[in-house]
Each structure stands twice: as C-alpha cells, then as structure tokens.
C-alpha cells in the first residue's frame, strides 16, 4: 500500500518536473534559422558539387584532361574531353560534364586531381524542374562566372 | 579455451584446422569443414557459448581452372603443355563467423565449407542457431545455395519473385 502512494507521489512529481522543463524551453529564444529569409554560410570544407578552378593568370581552366577524376569516380558521373593545342603543355579542356544526378558527393575526383583543377563549390540551394538541369557543363559554368 | 576448442573440433575430423594470427587476419581459428560436419560443429560452438555473427558465401568460379593451370611460368622458359584432363568441379564456399562474447580478448572462429557449384547444398544450422535463419536466407538469395532443412528460403532482401543470384561471379545485371 505504501508503494502505491509512493509511486503516486513520485509519478506526479515527475510529471510536474517535465512540465517545468518544457516551460523553461518555451521561454527560451528560438534556435531555428528562418531559411528563405536567412541562410547559412557554408564551412570552407563543405563538399558541394565540383567546380573547375580557373588559372589565376589566364582564367582558363587548370585542367589538363588527364582523366584521373573520371577514373576515380565510383559512379561514373564525370565525362570530359580535350584537344591538343600547340604550345600548351598537356591538353586543353573542351568539355567537362558532371552528371550530378548520379554523383554521391564523395570527393574522390577532387582528391585524385594533381593539377589543382577542380574544387568543391559551396552551393547547396539546388532545385530544378528536370533531370536534365542537373547535367552540369562545368566549363560553361566557369565561363558564365567569369562574366 | 582455444586449445580445448581445437581438440573438440578436431574430434570431428575437419579437413583442416589452423590457428591464425588475429592481428593479421582478424580471427583466431580457421576451420575447413565438410558439409556434413557443419551442424555438429555449430552444436559444439553453441555448447561453448559462442554467438553467431554471420553466414555468407564466396563464389570461387574460375578458381578451379586457375589451379588446374600451371602457375605462372618464368620468362624465357618453355611453357609446359598440359594434357587436357577432367575439368575439376567449380566450387563455392560458405563461411560461418562465430565469436565468443564472454572472454577478453574476444575469440573469433571461422568455419568454411566448400561445396560444389553445380549442386550447392548443405544442411542448415538454423536449428542450432535461430539467428542463422536470416543469414542463410540471405546467402540463398545472393548465391542460390540451398540449406536443406531450412524453414523458409524465400527471398529476404531480394524481391519476392527474384530468380537470380546477384553475387554469383557469372551474374550480369
């Protein structure tokens, strides 16, 4: 019988304590970010989709079309092409397509690159009307960015 | 513990029983058994208080052919021409992992069992370890190995009407 009352009192007390905690949190300031009105600054190591790095002097991509990124990619989402131009060491990039629909953002491509040619973008607001919108032409993106 | 276990398992006359270096391999005792011995071994391990970790398969397609071929011939030497004989049967392997949670450091035992690839059958241990039920079903899904006496070998992870076994080396999606 005493156990009955003991449990009754301890139970009621535990419920009251719970209410006290939620009330305390209720008067605390909110912790959420009002997303479309405010947005976050991504950390420097944030791994977005990849982006070509332009040469500091010429503004042309650093890429020499060695194809290491293509080989390293586990999901075959990179396809690139280049051509030989006289007077330039290596090849010159003509096409760099990232099929972002299959990319898993693992970063193997960036790790495998020895020419400082690709990096992660900080973009995370990605939405689009179709699958095709996610087949990125990185060379074109770089050119658009330059302007 | 390990010596006692070795004695007990040796009584069953397994094909081989070797102690392995844990640091290099990740397990302590490697037992190769024949299909008929598996259940008896599981019973011994059960009595000793081992827990079942996993059951899985390995498809050794092409291994028999590779073994039949002479090992690589050093450069310059005349390759020896083999007389074509009876092609050896392709094999599959079922691997059982057991561990003992009661002793420190942990004791891991691997039991391997070779079966013919053409007739992949061996008795189930789900009567000894109910936990083997799902692992064997999964192995049946992936390799088509039939565990005789298993209560329900319908596909577990694959779709219920799946009639393919994806982890076979000759499976092409």
């Amino acid at each position, binding site marked *: 019988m005493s156990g009955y009352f003991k449990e009754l009192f301890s*139970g009621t007390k535990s419920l009251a304590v719970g209410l006290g*905690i939620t009330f305390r949190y209720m008067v605390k300031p909110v912790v959420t970010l009002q997303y479309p009105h405010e947005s976050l600054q991504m950390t420097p190591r944030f791994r977005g989709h990849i982006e070509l790095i332009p040469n500091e002097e010429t503004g042309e991509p650093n890429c020499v079309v060695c194809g290491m990124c293509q080989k390293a990619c586990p999901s075959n989402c990179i396809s690139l092409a280049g051509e030989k131009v006289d007077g330039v060491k290596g090849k010159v990039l003509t096409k760099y397509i990232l099929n972002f629909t299959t990319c898993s953002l693992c970063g193997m491509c960036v790790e495998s690159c020895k020419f400082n040619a690709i990096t*992660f973008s900080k973009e995370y607001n990605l939405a689009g009307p179709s699958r095709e919108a996610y087949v990125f032409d990185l060379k074109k993106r770089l050119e658009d960015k330059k302007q | 513990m390990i010596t006692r276990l070795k004695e007990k398992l040796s009584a069953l006359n397994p094909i081989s029983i070797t102690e392995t270096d844990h640091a290099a391999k990740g397990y302590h005792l490697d037992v190769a058994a024949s299909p008929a011995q598996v259940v008896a071994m599981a019973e011994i391990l059960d009595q000793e208080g081992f827990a079942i*970790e*996993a059951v899985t398969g*390995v498809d050794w397609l092409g291994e028999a052919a590779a073994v039949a071929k002479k090992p690589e011939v050093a450069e310059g030497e005349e390759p020896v021409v083999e007389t074509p004989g009876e092609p050896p049967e392709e094999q599959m392997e079922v691997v059982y992992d057991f561990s003992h949670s009661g002793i420190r450091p942990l004791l891991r035992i*691997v039991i391997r069992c070779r079966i013919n690839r053409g007739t992949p059958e061996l008795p189930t241990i789900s009567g000894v*370890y109910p936990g083997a039920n799902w692992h064997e079903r999964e192995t049946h899904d992936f390799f088509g190995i039939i565990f005789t006496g298993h209560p329900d070998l319908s596909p577990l992870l*694959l779709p219920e009407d799946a009639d393919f076994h994806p982890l076979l080396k000759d499976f092409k999606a």
Partner: protein
Amino acid sequence: MSDLARSQNQETFVLNLGPQHPATHGVLRVKLTMDGEYILRAEPVLGYIHRMHEKMGENRTWAQFMPNTGRLDYLGALSYNHGYALVVERAMGITVPERAEYLRVITVELNRIASHLLWFGAFVLDLGGFTPLLYAFDDREKILDLLESVTGSRLTFCYFRFGGLYNDVDDDFITGSRAFIKRLRSRMPDYHNLVTNNIIMIKRLKDVGLISAEMCRKYGATGPVLRGSGVDFDIRKNEPYSVYSEFDFDIPVYHECDSMARYMVRMDEIEQSLRIIEQALDKLPEGPVMAEKVPKIIKAPKGDYYAAVEAARGTFGIRVVSDGTNTPYRLKLRSPTYSNLSLYEEASQGMLLADALALMGSLDLVIPEIDR
C-alpha cells in the same frame, strides 16, 4: 499460431505495418498476425531499400568503395568508414599515425553521440512524445556542424582513408568539441528529467520487451541490445582496435533485459563517449594524419580478412576476400541491426501492439543498414 491464439480460439487478422509507417523509421514492413491488440506473430519483411552494396564492392576499386560505407548506416557513417579502413589496413599491413587514430576516435565518438541522440528523439517519438526529438536534434545539429567543418558533409561522411584521414582538423574543431561536451553535459539532466524519470515512460518501458542474454547469443544480437541484457560486451573493450585501449571509459551494462535497460545503455553511452572525446582531445598528439607508405593503387594481398568495430548499433563486421587485384573479390558486410532485428519475431510474440512498437524502437533500426 501460438498457444495464445489456440487456447482462445478467436479470429485473428493480419495487420500490415509498413513499408510506409511512422514507427518503422524507413521502409521496413512487418507482417503482424494479431489477435485483437495482441501480436501472435510478427514477421519482418525486408529488402525495400536493398541496393546490393556487396556487389558494388566487387565492381569498384578498394578506395572507391569507401563512400558506400557511409551509405549503409547513415546515422553512424564514420564507424562504418572506420571498419572498412581497418580491414583494408589489416590486409595491407598499414600502420596509421597516432594523430589520425586519435582523430578517428574523436570523430567516431561524436558520430556515435549524434546517432544516439537521434535515436533518443525518435524513440520518444515512437512512444508519442514529440518534443524531446527537437531538443535532441538541436544538440545533434551542433555535432553535425562540427563534423561538417572537418569532413565537408553532414550525414554520409567519407572522412577516413586507408592509412589515415582525408585532412587534418583545425583549432576551431578542438574548441568547438570542448564547447559541445560542456553543452551536452548541461543538457543531459534535462533529458533525464523530461524523459527518463517520467512515470509514463517508466510504465511503458519497465519489464516490457524482454530479450534474454541467451536469445541475443543465439541470434547474434550485439551492441546496446546485448548490453541491456546484462552482457558486458563491447568490441572497443573486448577486441580493442585503434587507440581505444588508451582511454578510461566504462561499458554501461544493465541486467533488466527490458526496453528501459536498452534505453539506459544508450543514454549512458552518450556520457561515456563524451568522456572518451574529452580524454582524446587532451591527449591529441601532433603529427601527420596520413601514413607515408600507402601505395597509390591499393591491391590487398591474396587472402581473407576480417575486422569489426563497435558501431552505434552494435558490432559492424566486415570480411573481405582479396584475390590480389585492385578490386575486392568478395566483400561481406555484417550489419548489427540485421541480427538485432532477426530476434524481433521471437521477442515480440504475445505483446501488445504499442509495446511491440516500443520494443522495435528500442532495437534502434536503421533500415538501409539492414537491407544493404
């Protein structure tokens, strides 16, 4: 049919729980044969998110499979990274620099806390309490911020490499981790007062969902499930890997075998993980984070290798069979919840629906890891 049904000779019906159901946390389906609200048989139906990672492993190079490990258990991705890195390092005979080992421990333990926090919230949500989920998320978010600042991603981490780490941490991470330890310690009493001591929780979890140690052994259940059944078993202590033997921490063990015991194990593990992180931060040595003698193209020597780590949900074992080429010949992923869930059919027999869902919650299921 169980004795319960036969003795009462009543009509039974089949309730299809899932694959889309609020309590199954993903795409798990459980076929329940019910007698009123009592469960006669609960048969989990798996495979709704099966992706055949093991076959993918056979088609990718050793290094390319690393991101896959993060997709198995998306809540404790780093433990899985660790397991895979360990097995390949074991095969190749690579020794990892000290600093990398310490950082591995710190990040894995942070990840473990994040996983337990999410479980805590989701478990209380299963029991009908919504608010603790949001509090737990608030804390988890801090961990994700920390991990994002070093790994670059927030969920499917891929931070470990064979022989070390992807990159080194900065001072912000160290101070951030210390601040986080302080913050979480100050919030744990709130969690306990709000949830653990709550009479409704106690009534729902005490003596409900009994799983005996023997049952765990027969089914191969590990992790908090096993520790809640009174077995002092943790890979970090029983088969020490990495630098865990250098830390002073306890393995929480509860002997009640009920849902409450499993709950308490996880809550105590959060505190133990904080202890480990604190010690690791204190002892963190200087040095490189990547071993020097790692070949560019990984080709594990012929043979088979096994490694196990203590993931948030139990023992994650990984067996690789190598034929000496640059891809694994066979890759077996032994996921803990697969074994933990397999005892559900036996454990849930004769339970009320609400209690059975509490039991399911206390197993801490992550479906992609079960289906692989």
